[in-house]
């Protein structure tokens, strides 16, 4: 009998993986060697047992673990997409800034002095550059411009601000494409839209303003403001009046109002307010919360997807332990979903309705100083001149009387001196009348000395 086959040769033989000669040789040996046949059968059995080992049921927690891992992966993917989106939007914003700067330079160099004539003309570019640059550098980039005005220049100040404050319809259009890419932004169905503003609905901007007005028609002006708020579809969030009117001997009325105006009517309301009495102070800000909003919205979607997955699992769960675990997770996710929805609603409300804080103060009538006398009608100018002269006459007479009475002691002495002087004069004149041809003094003294 030839040498026994080793296990490696047996293995090769079973797989038919030996060379032709080796196979023939092994076959011949197996035919005459019971020991090797037995070992071959044992190996064949081992292989058969290996193949027949039945599959086991995976642990119940496996499915949940996989779902959780997928949910975590989804969050990572979303974060990655947002990062890519941010880079893209940053690039678009930078491109928009370059376009604007180039445009501004072209205008100021080629279009003559118009672009650099005064500060207010340059202001819109400054604003838009700020607007673009801040678009993605911080999630809650704030664009604020503050301007205060004295009573005399209030009108001009407000007019200038109107020109420099681009409202939504003036926002740079280069941003629209980038914003459209975001795509995930929650569409606010309740927000009214105007024709060319659809892409701008993706921008979530909170407009806030503070202004202080003074008026000598407090009640009328306040009433008209409240009427205007209703007419523009807004509402009054807060309204209070304090103090006593000057007309009633008090130190003036003071009113505070918080007005909520639909975003599209914000500009009109601010313009209307500027015409109420005298505008003492104006501050406006526009906070862009698009990124924060988008992030929150994606978070909500993820949470809802997780909840759906858990609910589906819950239907299949049989073990009490699994049900309890799922219930705990469901409760936690439901709470997070409610919080997220509440945050989104709050942001929507803030965006849909601009907030205008108005301070209204009564002015004393005598404080009123006409802006310019040349602007008054002729009749009023004549009337005012007459009143002014009469008042001066009255004041002059009063002053004369006061001075007169005040000077009474000196006047008395003067009168006494005058009376005495007059008396002396009269006595002298009387004496002269009694001796009309009287001798010269030397003549009178001559005889008396001779006698």
């Amino acid at each position, binding site marked *: 009998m030839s040498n026994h086959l*080793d296990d490696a040769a047996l293995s090769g033989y079973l797989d038919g993986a030996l060379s032709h000669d080796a196979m023939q040789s092994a076959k011949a040996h197996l035919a005459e060697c019971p020991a090797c046949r037995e070992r071959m059968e044992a190996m064949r059995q081992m292989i058969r047992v*290996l*193949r027949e080992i039945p599959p086991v049921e995976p642990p119940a927690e496996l499915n949940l673990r996989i779902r959780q891992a*997928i949910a975590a992966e989804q969050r990572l993917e979303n974060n990655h997409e947002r990062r890519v989106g941010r880079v893209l939007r940053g690039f678009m914003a930078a491109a928009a800034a370059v376009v604007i700067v180039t445009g501004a330079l072209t205008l100021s160099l080629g279009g003559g002095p118009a672009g650099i004539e005064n500060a207010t003309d340059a202001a819109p570019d400054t604003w838009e550059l700020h607007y673009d640059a801040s678009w993605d550098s911080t999630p809650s980039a704030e664009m604020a411009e503050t301007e205060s005005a004295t009573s005399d220049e209030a009108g001009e100040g407000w007019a200038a601000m109107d020109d420099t404050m681009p409202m939504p319809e003036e926002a740079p259009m280069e941003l629209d494409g980038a914003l459209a890419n975001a795509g995930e932004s929650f569409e606010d169905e309740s927000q009214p839209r105007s024709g060319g503003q659809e892409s701008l609905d993706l921008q979530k901007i909170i407009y806030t303003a503070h202004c202080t007005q003074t008026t000598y028609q407090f009640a009328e002006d306040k009433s008209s403001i409240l009427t205007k708020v209703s007419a523009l579809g807004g509402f009054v969030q807060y309204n209070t009046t304090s103090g006593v009117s000057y007309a009633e001997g008090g130190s003036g009325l003071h009113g505070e109002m918080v007005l909520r105006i639909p975003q599209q009517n914000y500009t009109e309301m601010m313009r209307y307010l500027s015409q109420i009495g005298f505008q003492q102070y104006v501050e406006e800000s526009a906070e862009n919360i698009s990124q924060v909003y988008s992030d929150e919205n994606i978070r909500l979607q993820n949470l809802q997807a997780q909840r759906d997955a858990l609910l589906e699992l819950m239907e299949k769960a049989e073990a009490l332990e699994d049900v309890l675990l799922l219930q705990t997770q469901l409760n936690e996710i439901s709470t997070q979903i409610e919080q997220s929805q509440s945050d989104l609603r709050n942001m929507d409300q803030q965006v849909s309705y601009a907030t205008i804080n108005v301070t209204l103060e009564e002015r004393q009538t005598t404080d009123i100083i006409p802006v310019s006398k040349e602007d008054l009608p002729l009749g009023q100018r004549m009337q005012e001149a007459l009143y002014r002269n009469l008042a001066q006459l009255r004041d002059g007479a009063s002053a004369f009387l006061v001075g007169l009475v005040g000077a009474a002691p000196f006047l008395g002495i003067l009168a006494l001196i005058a009376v005495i002087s007059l008396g002396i004069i009269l006595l002298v004149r009387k004496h002269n009348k009694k001796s009309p041809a009287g001798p010269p003094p030397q003549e009178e003294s001559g005889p008396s000395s001779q006698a």
Partner: protein
Amino acid sequence: MSFARFKGPTAQVGLLADFDRLVEEHQKRVYNVCLRMMRNPQDAMDMTQETFLKAWRAKDSFMGQSSVSTWLHRVAVNACLDELRRQKKRTAVSMQELSESGWEPADEHTGDFASRIIDQTAVNAALDLLPSDHRTVLILRDMEGYSYEELAAAMHCPVGTVRSRLNRARANMMKILAAMEQNVPADVKISKGGRSDEQPS
């Protein structure tokens, strides 16, 4: 399964639902492949999770795939192979523990196999004692039905190497089974080298 209809973020929920069905359908098979290769439930769960994560990441490339099952199986095996390479030391520990327990594999050439009971319990136990590369090739070939070419592709080595490794793996299995059956020390070491297999006399 086609994922073509899942486009855009709003379809995420639908995508998740369909992916859940995919997991439901294939997790048992994937888990069992992983369990056979990793030899413990915890590692098997980790590798199953890893497999489906990879599937999720590659969900777009599922389009046009004739068999998701084959694809998942390959991903699972590769994940396990990667993990086993990282865990190489575990095998050494097993062998060391084996030696410390006083056991050494017996030579297999004695002709008393008829008395042995080669059942699932014994085979499973013997698998645990194999060096990991031997176990892997044995599992993939004899349990998962891989061809030599598929083995070569999965293990990144030539077909000849696969063949000799498989032969040595089976030989070592037989040695271990024989030793377990006889429970007697032997002076034959488990062979891992290419040409060091002893010939039966």
